[in-house]
């Protein structure tokens, strides 16, 4: 938690300091490459967990149904809140 906040805050400070430099154009590219790395490690952690791998079929389906519905439910909630509170004030978000 502390590390997470420190990482972001130090980044914000550096970003503010270099906001006029050409370097900031490449930041979103760097972010994408790091996302790819993290996804690779997420795959590794699933693949190296014996209990998850052995029961993947039966347990996986139930997990998928809950995850898909829970995600869909929150998407619908997100859309409602956006329509109600955010869309009409689009200019000041």
């Amino acid at each position, binding site marked *: 938690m502390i*590390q*997470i906040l420190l*990482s*972001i805050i*130090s*980044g914000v400070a*550096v*970003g*503010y*300091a*270099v906001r006029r430099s050409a370097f*900031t154009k490449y*930041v*979103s590219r*760097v*972010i*994408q490459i*790091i*996302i*790819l*790395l*993290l*996804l690779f*490690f*997420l*795959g*590794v*952690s*699933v*693949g*190296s967990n014996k*209990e*998850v791998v052995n*029961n*993947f079929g039966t*347990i996986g389906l139930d*997990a998928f*149904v*809950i*995850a*898909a*519905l*829970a*995600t869909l*439910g*929150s*998407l*619908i*909630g*997100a*859309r*409602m*809140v*956006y329509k*109600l*509170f*955010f*869309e009409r*004030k689009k200019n000041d*978000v």
Partner: protein
Amino acid sequence: MKDSLLYLAIFTIGLVLALWGVLPDVLLSASISKWILYGLLFFVGIQIGSSKGAFWAIRSIGRRIVWVPVATTLGTFAAAAIASLILPLRSLTDCLSVGAGFAYYSLSSILISGYRGAELGTIALLANIFREFMVLVFAPWMVKHFGPLSPICAGGATTMDTTLPVITRYSGTDYVVVALFHGMIIDFSVPLWVSFFAGLG
């Protein structure tokens, strides 16, 4: 969509390599991805700090920001209740406990294993990994069909760390503040909700 396929491929490569057991032990330790994550957050910070409107947005978003975690929580619980009707083996409180993980799979799976045993714990692990994964892969689709708040609500507790970069990328830097606020609130609520539902009946 090209990005999504690339993400899916990279995840699968990691999964297959781990199954094969060809990876050195160093790569299997959780600390590596934790440091990569901190590096990532640092760059996300740079993006926030160097973007023009971000600081100003903090003040202008105002009180409506609290509706975002409310939408996440109510939407998730309503849908988890529906899931319990579809899945014969899982009770209402099983599904609500798993849903209350809000993609925080490490904590929720451990808590649920403690209350309900390893099977539901494993379901919680997988379901909440799926949830994070869906945001990482489908964020552009979500934004297109459900608006810029949708990957934030879908991302649950992860919107202040792992899914923050995709939210930044597809909802825009204006929503970073919403994502951080939302992630913090949901993050704190996970152990409370999971203990509440898993402790029932």
